[in-house]
């Protein structure tokens, strides 16, 4: 057993875990953060995407011990209180979800995309989402939501400047 200390959504946490414990297991089972989902168990579907030190990773691929000292953000940490993150708001507004199971991973991937590329083209959005499977929507409204979020975030930035 290892003792692992890191921050999750800004809060310092310490968990006891075996060396082989996956980050997703630590988040879901030990920390009760069940918004990060397990869809395929093998890091292909993207339901488990979280951010480690700001970069998107599949929490089914990362060991818990690897995040020692890191800052982890999950879907639960994206909104500011009741105020949704612009990407969350856009997924709701543009119907970018149906069953909702892929949604947390999709949103965490999309947020990372917009950190890299504030105004992605449709092609760039679609390429970025290659590692996230959605079985319900056909992706149309997901792409639309990310595009709308990019525009709304650009607008906020201009307003702030």
């Amino acid at each position, binding site marked *: 057993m290892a003792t692992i200390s890191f921050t999750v959504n800004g809060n310092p946490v310490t968990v006891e875990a075996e060396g082989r414990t996956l980050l997703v297991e630590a988040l879901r089972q030990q920390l009760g953060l*069940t*918004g990060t989902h397990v869809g395929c*168990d093998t890091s292909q579907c993207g339901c488990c995407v979280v951010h480690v030190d700001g970069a998107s990773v599949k929490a089914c691929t990362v060991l818990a011990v690897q995040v020692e000292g890191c800052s982890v953000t999950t*879907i639960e940490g994206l909104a500011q209180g009741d105020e*949704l993150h612009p990407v969350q708001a856009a997924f709701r507004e543009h119907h970018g979800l*149906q*069953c*909702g199971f892929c949604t947390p991973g999709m949103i965490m991937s999309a947020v990372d995309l917009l950190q890299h590329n504030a105004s992605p083209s449709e092609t760039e959005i679609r390429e970025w989402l290659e590692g996230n499977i959605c079985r319900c*929507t056909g992706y*149309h409204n997901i792409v639309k939501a990310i595009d709308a979020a990019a525009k709304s975030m650009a607008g906020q930035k201009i307003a702030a400047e």
Partner: protein
Amino acid sequence: MSRVHQSLAHDSAVQHVTGRARYTDDLPEPKGLLHAAVGLSQCAAGRIMALDLGPVRNSPGVVAVVTAADIPGVNDIGPVFHDEPVLATDRVDYWGQALFAVAATTVEAARRAARLAQVTYAPEPPLLTVDQALAAASFVLPPHTMQKGDVEAALATAPHRLACELRMGGQDHFYLEGQIALVLPQDDGGFLVYSSTQHPSEIQHKVAEVLGLPSAAVTVEVRRMGGGFGGKETQGNLIAVLAALLARQTGRPVKLRLDRDTDMELTGKRHDFKSRFEVGFDDEGRILALDAELAARCGLSADLSAAICDRAMFHTDNAYYLPAARIHAHRCKTHTVSNTAFRGFGGPQGMLGAEFYIDEIARQLGKDPLDVRLSNLYGPGRDTTPYHMQVEDNVLPELMLELEATCRYRQRRQAITAFNAQSPIIKRGLALTPVKFGISFTVTHLNQAGALLHIYQDGSLHLNHGGTEMGQGLFVKVQQIVADVFDVPPAWVHLSPTNTGKVPNTSPTAASSGTDLNGMAAQNAALTLKDRLAAFVAERHQASPEEVRFEQGEVVVRGNRLAFAEVARRAYLARIQLSATGFYKTPKIHYDRDQARGRPFYYFACGAACSEVAVNTATGEHRTTRVDILHDAGRSLNPAIDQGQIEGGFVQGMGWLTSEELWWNEAGRLMTHAPSTYKIPTARDVPHTFHVSLWERGENHEDTIHRSKAVGEPPLMLAISVFLALRDALASLRPHSRPKLDAPATPERILWAAKALREGR
């Protein structure tokens, strides 16, 4: 104001985007919870000579192991016919069949232990394919025939005649949330089951039967599923039953969540079919007679195959009038997992066959397939189906012409012909195909639903109905329907998890019928309460109930405006019952299966799609470059939700027909049991240009809920246009050719077809 026909967001959208939405695996885990895993057969067919579970029992963390011998009730999970064991007894009939289940203190301990059984089999040569089953006369159920007119005579006198054959693969549901159940023993000997299921009542019945309990001792609850697509209509039975057996054995709560690979090996899929057609037609390509023989791979048991194969037969006409027809279907028994419901429920396989034989006719005559399609549509005097139902609300002739014009089919056809003439490798293809999908369960008694509605003293409402939410937007639609009755904001109507203790004897949420049935039942409950409130208010104000109006959260009578909450409170004080049930059964439908005659469908849901593809005939790679869809959702209850169903259904259909290939090895083991080898469409695989429109003139001629039409399954079949566009592109390689292309049209199959055409075969 109207609360329906509005594009409200999904009722759980905020929970979804914040990660707060709870699926079964996200429920707070009860104290003492055990985790379960399933031991799978490693042999497709044969007797079990020895099953040594000692190593399983001795594995660290293991608390209990159950086999068939530990079943107190009936060892059966068959939904209709009793031919599918929970756990194997003396033999196995598919690779991956459940032999035993184990409960341990952690997920990992259970899964490790499940692999440790020592099993000795006396293997037999497995029957894996439709052809093998047909040759061995191995069937789960007898064949069935629909017949209209004298087919032999009409075929014999037809000016033209052709025979053709098409094979189409199955499909894994790949609901993102895999199969799961959590079972809690209760203090009275009963069980509370949380199950990711489209059919809570069947889970209830199966758990009770296997445990030897009355149904009333088992309560099943589901708030939402992470996708279902038919894969959770019967396939949740095994999961819930195994968890319940272990919970009974240990007296502790047990959770069973299949990992993805196990889920794909252990649970059923869409049926693959082999379909043969003999068709007679005139110079215009109008069909005079069809003789169709379908064969479906059902797997080891009947499951829902009777109704699925019937639905394939019901859709072997798709939108086309067949003056004489014989449709015959075999239900093949094989040593593979029992195939099951999947969005369309046999309809897609029937309909793909229809579009294929129409395409064959067009290519034999050298005509544009669209012209042959249009000339064969149902119309006045040509309106009786092969099962003797009259097609009344026939919207397709108008809808297809509208789409033909708006997508500029004729101009694009010319441009594609010109392009292909000067492009030796890249070939383009175009196809515009209709969908006419029968709405109602063809098993008539399932067309019923119940609802339960309470009004509390503060005016808030609590709604429950028998339908389940799997992402399709059923809950928000029914919420809108109830809100509309009282003209209150939909947010006042609290949605509650589907629970067998609240509404009993429910039908599965399937057959696209969820809103039609449960929406009506909920509306009936709401109207009962509205009548009670109106009578009460009228009496207090010396008015007649007809004078009482419900407007924007208020109740208006004789110039007085009362808050809805105030009316609820006063009604309570006056001892008015503020709780009501509602019930609905679909009218008009009847079907005599022995005669294959009747009106199995209340109405048809229709649409059309035009797809354009580009094919690299040197590599087999292809892209869908543009899709235009015009779909009739009637007077849509929620246009945004319906549009989402169309987009998602279409892409799922594209997956079925172009990339999702299930492959078993010679020993009968499914080798494509993860998304690494089973290709689900991703965001880049979908149409580059994708125009989806709801048909503005759409209105259900039947008295459905607010004149809407069901929209869950039909759009999947719009993707048949992609398959036929691929065939169209291939056909350009050789004039008057009839390309040999089976589904799914993977790059390999396209390459083989291109090669055959180039070699003149």
